[in-house]
């Protein structure tokens, strides 16, 4: 799976592929990271609808690089999340059907929101786990 799928090449002679957009995005990333360090909470940068060429995307991804964390989330399709080589800068990529990239953004902070477990899910899980234990107990009892 590459980002190329989003921007299939129509011709061997498209206009200059590196448009300078990646440079602009990187500058924005730097600015937001500085704000985060100063204690602010900053919104993510959404790459989905940006007029980036596939070269721009590759350039951006390559220059942000890979850091220490890589995660895959399986929920309503697959998602890939990794911390870039710059701590606090996260690359979040959601896939739709057929492994198509559905949305893509750069998030800032300790970890992207999607990695945290939601309180509602946790309480549901607690209930489920309790119920599962109860039924196991019951089975054990009947077994005796």
């Amino acid at each position, binding site marked *: 799976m590459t980002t190329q799928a989003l921007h299939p090449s*129509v011709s*061997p002679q498209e206009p200059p592929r590196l448009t300078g957009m990646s440079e602009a995005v990187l500058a924005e990333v730097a600015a937001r990271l500085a704000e985060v360090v100063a204690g602010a909470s900053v919104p993510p940068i959404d790459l989905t609808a940006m007029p980036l060429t596939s070269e721009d995307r590759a350039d951006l991804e390559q220059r942000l690089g890979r850091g220490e964390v890589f995660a895959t989330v399986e929920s309503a399709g697959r998602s890939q999340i990794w911390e870039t080589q710059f701590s606090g800068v996260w690359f979040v990529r959601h896939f739709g059907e*057929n492994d198509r990239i559905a949305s893509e*953004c750069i998030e800032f902070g300790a970890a992207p929101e999607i990695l945290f477990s939601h309180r509602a899910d946790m309480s549901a899980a607690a209930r489920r786990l309790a119920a599962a234990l109860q039924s196991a107990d019951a089975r054990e009892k009947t077994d005796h």
Partner: protein
Amino acid sequence: MPQAPKLAPTLGELLQERGVSRRAFLKYASYLSAVMALPAGSASALAEGLANARRQSVIWLSFQECTGCTESLTRSFSPTLESLIFDLISLDYHHTLQAASGEAAEKAREAAMAENKGKYVVVVDGAVPTKDGGLYSTIAGVSNLDMLKATAKDAMAVIAVGTCAAFGGIPKARPNPTGAAAIDEIITDKPIINIPGCPPIPEAMAGVVSYLVSFVKLPELDHLRRPKAFFGETIHDRCYRRPFYERGLFAEGFDDAGARQGWCLYKVGCKGPVTYNACATLKWNGGVSFPIQSGHGCLGCSEPDFWDQGGFYRPLSTNLRDMGPALAGAALAGAALGAGAAWASRRHQESYQREQNPNEGDKK
């Protein structure tokens, strides 16, 4: 927010039962906020809104149309992310999709209307014939016109899906034999959202419904009642072939060297510069491509009267009418008037001449 009294479970609870985590909401929300260009950071708010919302009752009316809009919507709804849309709504009436038929179907519509009075959303695809009392299209003996009026009466909002519903579309194209009209020409006292396109982009339909469900308000609309999120920019603005336009590199035909090199399609009639839609960014068929990428100019299908804009293959800058004969006539008339004016002037001069020199006859 229409909080139903304790009855129905929230969407969050509903999906919880099916093992769908809140991460799915968050993911869907971040996807939606991306395509709808919602303010950065609104994804979690949207996710919370969705999770706490009740299922929205939707009545889908199909009038003078080709079912292309429904096809478009359903084609995109294969499992995973976008399938959530069907979990968000309770599609209480839809010719093509509902199992019930005949009287049972009409009963379902009436029941939904009664149960959710003032809260249901009416989605319309197709234009409404208004000529001769609207007899050109009826369902179960009721004219489209009457059914629309009756159904919209107690609706919270009306969504006109597709160019036919939004602007009259092809049924309204000259000479418009059925007197086809757009929804907002008939319903004037309800909030109306137009999602034009022939067909509209599925994400636009899904996005608007989701927005409505979670925020219970209309998204920001343009002067044609189109959500700015999807119709805020032209195809041309976001077209990957735009650099060719600026550099003056144009395909002159569909099979020339320029076309093969992917040059701008302006000269072969692309209406991208005046067409507001998200095709160039969201694309079609799961992001595979869109018309310009496939080598054909934009037809401008999400714009009013796109069928009557002088031809799909005539460049945008050409005038709409054949002016040759009119201009030739004008040139002839101008020459005649000029000759007449000169003749009158000459006569003036001659009469002055005679007045001044009554004895001289033939001098110029």
